[in-house]
């Protein structure tokens, strides 16, 4: 007994170091797996409030460019509306809608790490939930991973864990969108079969297979494509429409059928 105590006293710094190191690595490893979201993230009360204060100040510096962006989007939507004279009444019963949309603002964004997260200034109090889609005026941004009362943490498309269903515009060929962590302007589209005719500059949009995003939300254009090792699928580099470094206003989309679809899918997976 005496010897054990002596041992502990003698090596207490090493033991303490090993304890902290194992703790840190276990946090890191367990949040790397797909289904476990991060336990400790910046969407908590303290860090969220600090980020909100700081972004309230820094906002003023790009108000005009942000206004310009929103104006461009309004113009595009106005144009679409004006050319579809049929849509003059809007459904009043909101329980009938397939998608509901909330606005939010980004208070923290990063793009320099292999796993990037975005923090929004709205949370479960404003109706945000896990697995809601987040888009900007220009394109897809990510998926809500974790919410607290007033803040939400979003897994950015610039995250090695992220996979989003995407397809080539005006076709039904779909694949999954991933990121290799190298360039914050370029993401990768996998699993497009080689029989598809691709051209550089083709537009990539979200696919119909997603239970999170509506179909046909723009993502980017094809920058480069190559056949992968097995020579049966393409690996495509997609240049994003979004400037991931300069984002402010975002929309959070809830697919009201989403939970039902996911429940069904997990049931099938369990039976296999």
């Amino acid at each position, binding site marked *: 007994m005496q010897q054990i105590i002596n041992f502990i006293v003698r090596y207490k710094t090493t033991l303490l170091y090993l304890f*902290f190191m194992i703790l840190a690595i276990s946090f890191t490893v367990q949040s790397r797996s797909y289904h476990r979201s991060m336990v*400790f993230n910046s969407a908590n009360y303290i*860090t969220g409030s600090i980020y909100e204060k*700081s972004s309230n100040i820094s906002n003023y510096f790009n108000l005009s460019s942000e206004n310009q962006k929103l104006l461009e989007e309004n113009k595009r939507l106005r144009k679409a509306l004006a050319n579809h004279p049929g849509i003059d009444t809007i459904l009043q019963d909101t329980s009938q809608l397939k998608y509901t949309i909330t606005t939010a603002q980004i208070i923290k964004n990063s*793009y*320099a790490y292999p796993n990037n997260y975005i923090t929004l200034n709205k949370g479960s109090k404003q109706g945000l939930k896990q697995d809601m889609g987040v888009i900007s005026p220009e394109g897809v941004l990510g998926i809500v991973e974790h919410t607290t009362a007033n803040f939400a943490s979003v897994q950015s498309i610039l995250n090695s864990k992220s996979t989003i269903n995407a397809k080539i515009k005006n076709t039904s060929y779909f694949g999954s969108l991933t990121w290799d962590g190298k360039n914050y302007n370029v993401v990768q589209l996998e699993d497009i079969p080689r029989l598809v005719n691709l051209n550089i500059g083709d537009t990539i949009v979200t696919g119909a297979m997603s239970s999170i995003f509506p179909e046909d939300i723009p993502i980017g254009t094809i920058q480069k494509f190559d056949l992968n090792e097995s020579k049966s699928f393409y690996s495509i580099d997609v240049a994003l429409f979004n400037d991931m470094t300069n984002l402010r206003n975002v929309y959070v989309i809830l697919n009201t059928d989403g939970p039902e679809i996911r429940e069904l899918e997990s049931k099938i997976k369990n039976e296999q």
Partner: protein
Amino acid sequence: MNAVRFLLLIAVQVLVFNKLNFFGFINPMVYILFLYWYPIKENRTAFISISFLLGFIIDIFSDTMALHAASSVTIAYLRPAIMRFVFGVNFEFQSFKLSNTTLVQQITFLALLIITHHLLFFTLEIFSFSNLLIILKKVVFTGAATLVVCLLLRTLFSVKKE
């Protein structure tokens, strides 16, 4: 003094340097200065615990799991060994002061802390050795940026007032 330094370095790291993104990926990690400045004769157990806490708070802010915590607790643990390497045995004497050593020794000490920290940080971050080139690129560029910014801050807030 240490508590003020602790809070200020976290604030500066999180609100300024984490948003720099030079060339899209360089974010200097200036909080390493805390481990550089921390008194030598203090209790090691406390030092390791505080370093873990420092890293972990920065992790929570920057959504990096526990990468900062792991790397900063490691350099806290290795600091005596690094000091022995840089300053020789005389750092164990009571009269030893960081400000009495030569500038080259101080820079070497800081650089070694930074290199160890960054190597571990980016290895854990990317977590696969197939991307060794990216790890090395990030270590070299971010390390250089961290060293430059830390040296500037060190000069700016030097303890000697004359």
